[in-house]
């Protein structure tokens, strides 16, 4: 897809209809903005020396560095309060870093104006521990809202929502009230909403935190299926058993810095053992 010729999000989404699944709505942040021609060859996400301090005596991030390539599945782990959520919030610009750069598709999200932030978020799919679904809306409405924001035609919205619900295992349940669904089903609704726009990057902030272990594995598998179609996934969790059961890249937040462990938690433990032994 010739991303440089796209002029607005809606066109981007409509073009992506004809070119799926290899292409995504290109991450330009503002209607009318043009992406650079080289943007497709760059890493999807780059964190450069990112600092974030809420309390001077306890900085959350102290020079965090990370490079996420297109199509990667990355676990972000670390103990509670280590800054996983803050890291994700910096990416979707709920927070602004005190120092450093966060490049998403080559654009520094920290320098986006307030009016540009929505256009950044249209290219992200965000899933939370507490689902953040609207309980009195139907399943369909909860998923369709992401497309309505893109001013997508109604007919297309219906088709895309049906497809997303099928992918998360909720086919034919669009008319049900979301509030009456189980926790696992509500999280699937949230995942459907995150993927329905086919975003460049999915940010999952402890999406299994409120689910029992079996459901947690189900949801993780769902993310992996989404990842298998080419979507980049950043999955924050402190559930080591979940990380240990998979073979994805793992990045750990330790004292405000991101420490790499490339092949699952077992590799990370081995690395820690090596580092500990050397000490």
């Amino acid at each position, binding site marked *: 897809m010739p991303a440089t010729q796209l002029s607005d999000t809606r066109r981007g989404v409509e073009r992506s209809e004809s070119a799926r699944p290899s292409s995504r709505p290109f991450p330009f942040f503002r209607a009318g903005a043009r992406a650079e021609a080289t943007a497709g060859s760059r890493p999807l996400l780059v964190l450069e020396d990112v600092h974030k301090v809420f309390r001077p005596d306890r900085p959350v991030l102290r020079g965090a560095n990370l490079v996420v390539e297109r199509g990667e599945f990355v676990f972000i782990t670390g103990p509670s309060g280590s800054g996983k959520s803050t890291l994700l919030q910096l990416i979707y610009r709920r927070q602004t870093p005190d120092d450093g750069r966060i490049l998403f598709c080559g654009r520094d999200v920290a320098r986006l104006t307030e009016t540009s932030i929505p256009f*950044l978020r249209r290219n992200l799919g965000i899933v939370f521990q507490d689902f953040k679904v609207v309980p*009195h809306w139907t399943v369909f409405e909860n998923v369709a809202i992401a497309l*309505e924001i893109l001013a997508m035609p109604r007919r297309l919205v219906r088709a895309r929502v049906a497809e997303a619900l099928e992918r998360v295992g909720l086919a034919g349940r669009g008319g049900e009230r979301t509030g009456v669904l189980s926790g696992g089903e509500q999280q699937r609704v949230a995942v459907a909403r995150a993927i329905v726009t086919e975003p460049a990057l999915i940010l999952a902030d402890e999406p299994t935190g409120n689910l029992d272990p079996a459901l947690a594995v189900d949801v993780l598998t769902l993310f992996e299926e989404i990842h298998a179609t080419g979507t980049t996934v950043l999955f924050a969790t402190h559930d080591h058993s979940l990380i240990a059961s998979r073979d994805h890249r793992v990045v750990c937040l330790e004292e405000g810095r991101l420490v790499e462990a490339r092949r699952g938690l077992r590799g990370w433990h081995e690395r820690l053992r090596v580092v500990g032994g050397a000490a």
Partner: protein
Amino acid sequence: MKLRAIVARARRGLRGDLRLYLVAVACLTVAFVCLGAALWGLENLAALHDRFAGPRRLTVLLRESPDTTPARELRAALAELVEVRSVRPRTAAELRDAFLADSALGEGLEALPADLFPASLEVTLVPGIDRERIRALAERIGRFPVVEGVETYEGWLGGFDRIVLGGRIVVGGLALLVLLSVLAVVGGTIRLTVAGRRAEIEVMKLCGATDGFVRGPFLVEGAVQGVVAAALATALLAGLYVLGRDALDATVGALTGGRTAFLAPWMLVAMWAGAALAGAVGSAVSLRRYLTV
């Protein structure tokens, strides 16, 4: 498409918070009934004023019958003046008959003397003459020996002017009060709905909704509250007017010599449009303060 989507979401919001909106609309309807009633009163008062005030007239009270030579000479002289459009002589008998015909008690008043009212000349002036010139003209006419006095109706019209002006000030103040109440009621309602819909606003923002996308339905909801309240108030007033029109015309109409009228169409449209605008503004002000997600 975008407007349709905003309206569709506003409809969903109105349905979701129906009870809250009904209470708000009921409060606003009371306010608009007060404003509409005051406007109705003022409109009829102004119509009455216009009926009496224009075209301006003078009544020249004569010492003798208009058929006498001095009175005829005076009539001819008046007809020559540039300020005068027409001069109509009225005998005492004519005036008495007209009074008996106009009055519902005419039969009981037949014993009244024939010279109850003095003979007069009804002078109609050309339009656009100011009060100063009328006063000067009356003073000149008053110098004729045949003239007993000249009635310019100035004192009476001046009082009427003051009443209409006072009415306009009262209605203006009432309109301001209604505007403030619309802003307060709609603002409060929107504040509550924003608090109630915090979760969905957050979801929308996280999905990349612009401020306009989030605010649009709230503005529509505010405007709808205003216009529905104004329409209900209008319907209520119209119903009351239709029910009481005959009785009103029989009493007030008999005193003023005309029939009452309901609010002019332009006034209704202005009230509805103003209500919609005030509702939208109230909503916008509230959103500016409370929409912080």
